[in-house]
C-alpha cells in the first residue's frame, strides 16, 4: 500500500480473533489478558505485520489513537464481567472499563472504546484487551472480537 504525502502518517488496524476462545479466569477480581494467538487482520496500515506470538497489534509511529473493540461474550452465568483495552499495560483510568452482567450466560454483544496518546512507540508493545470476572473464577467464552485501532493524529 502506498504511503500518503504527509509527514504525520495515518495508521490503522482491524483484527478479529478466532471464534469461541476461552478466557481462563484464575482469580476473581483480577484482569486476564487475551492471548492474540490466532485471528485475522481485516485491514492494516503502519502497523507491524502480526507475528504468531502475542502481542500482534503493534503500531509503528507515535500519535493519538482511537481504540474500538466490539465483542460477544458468554458463560460465567449471571456474573459481573469487566473488560478494558489499552496499550501494553497502560489501561488509563480505572473508570474506563466496561462492566455488565452475563445474564443467563447467554451471548452478549458489547463495545468498548477509548483514545490513547502514545509518545513512546517502541515497535514491540502492542494494543491489548483484558477480561475480569468480578463475581467468581468462572471462565469467560469470548465468542467474537473485532479490535479496531485508528490513528487520529
Amino acid at each position, binding site marked *: 500500500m*502506498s504511503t*500518503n504525502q504527509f509527514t504525520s502518517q495515518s495508521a490503522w488496524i482491524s483484527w478479529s480473533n478466532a471464534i469461541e476462545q476461552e478466557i481462563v479466569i484464575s482469580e476473581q477480581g483480577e484482569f486476564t489478558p487475551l492471548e492474540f494467538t490466532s485471528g485475522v487482520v*481485516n485491514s492494516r496500515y503502519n502497523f507491524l505485520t502480526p507475528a504468531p506470538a502475542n502481542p500482534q497489534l503493534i503500531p509503528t509511529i507515535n500519535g493519538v489513537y482511537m481504540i*474500538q473493540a*466490539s465483542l460477544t461474550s458468554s458463560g460465567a452465568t449471571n456474573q459481573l464481567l469487566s473488560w478494558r483495552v489499552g496499550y501494553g499495560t497502560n489501561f488509563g483510568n480505572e473508570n474506563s472499563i466496561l462492566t455488565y452482567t452475563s445474564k443467563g450466560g447467554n451471548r452478549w454483544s458489547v463495545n468498548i472504546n477509548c483514545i490513547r496518546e502514545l509518545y513512546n512507540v517502541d515497535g514491540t508493545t502492542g494494543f491489548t484487551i483484558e477480561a475480569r470476572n468480578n463475581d467468581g473464577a468462572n471462565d469467560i467464552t469470548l465468542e467474537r472480537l*473485532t479490535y479496531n485501532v485508528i490513528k487520529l493524529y
Partner: protein
Amino acid sequence: MQFQNTIAYAQLYNVGGEVTNLESLAYKYFPFPAISSNIGTLKNINVSSDSEFKAYVEQTGAYFIDFSFIADSGDSRQYKICPFIDGVQQSEALENLFFQQPSGVKYEVSANWILNLTQGQEIAIKLEVFNIPTVTFFARDIKMSIFNLQQLGIH
C-alpha cells in the same frame, strides 16, 4: 492502492420495524431501504433504492464501518450480524452475536469493522437467526456510519 484526494463518507439510517425475511441459519439483508430520505449525510458513497439496507463505495480504500440498531422482541433466540462485501461473507471471525432475552426487551446491538473495499463494491451488514422466533423480531433505529480512512487531510 493510492490515497484519495477526495473524501468518502456516509451516514445512513432507517426507523426499521418488523423483520419479515428471517430464515433459520441464513444471512439476510436488513429489509429496509437506505434510500435518499434515510440519508443523514453522504459523499462518494451510493445507496440502493431497493428494499435492502446496503451501500456502494465509489472509491477503493480502507473503510471504517459502524453499524447499530435496537433489537426488539424475537424472544429467546440467538442472532448474529456480519459484514458482507458484494454479498459474500468475508470471515466468521467478523460476526457479532447476541441473544434476545425471553421478556420482550429492547437491546442495543452495535459493532464496527475496518474493511478493504474496491471501487463499486457493495457493503452490507446482514442478520441471521439460529432458529425462527415464535415472537416477531423487530430491528429499530438502524444506523450505519462509514468513511474512507485512505483519504488526505484527516491525519
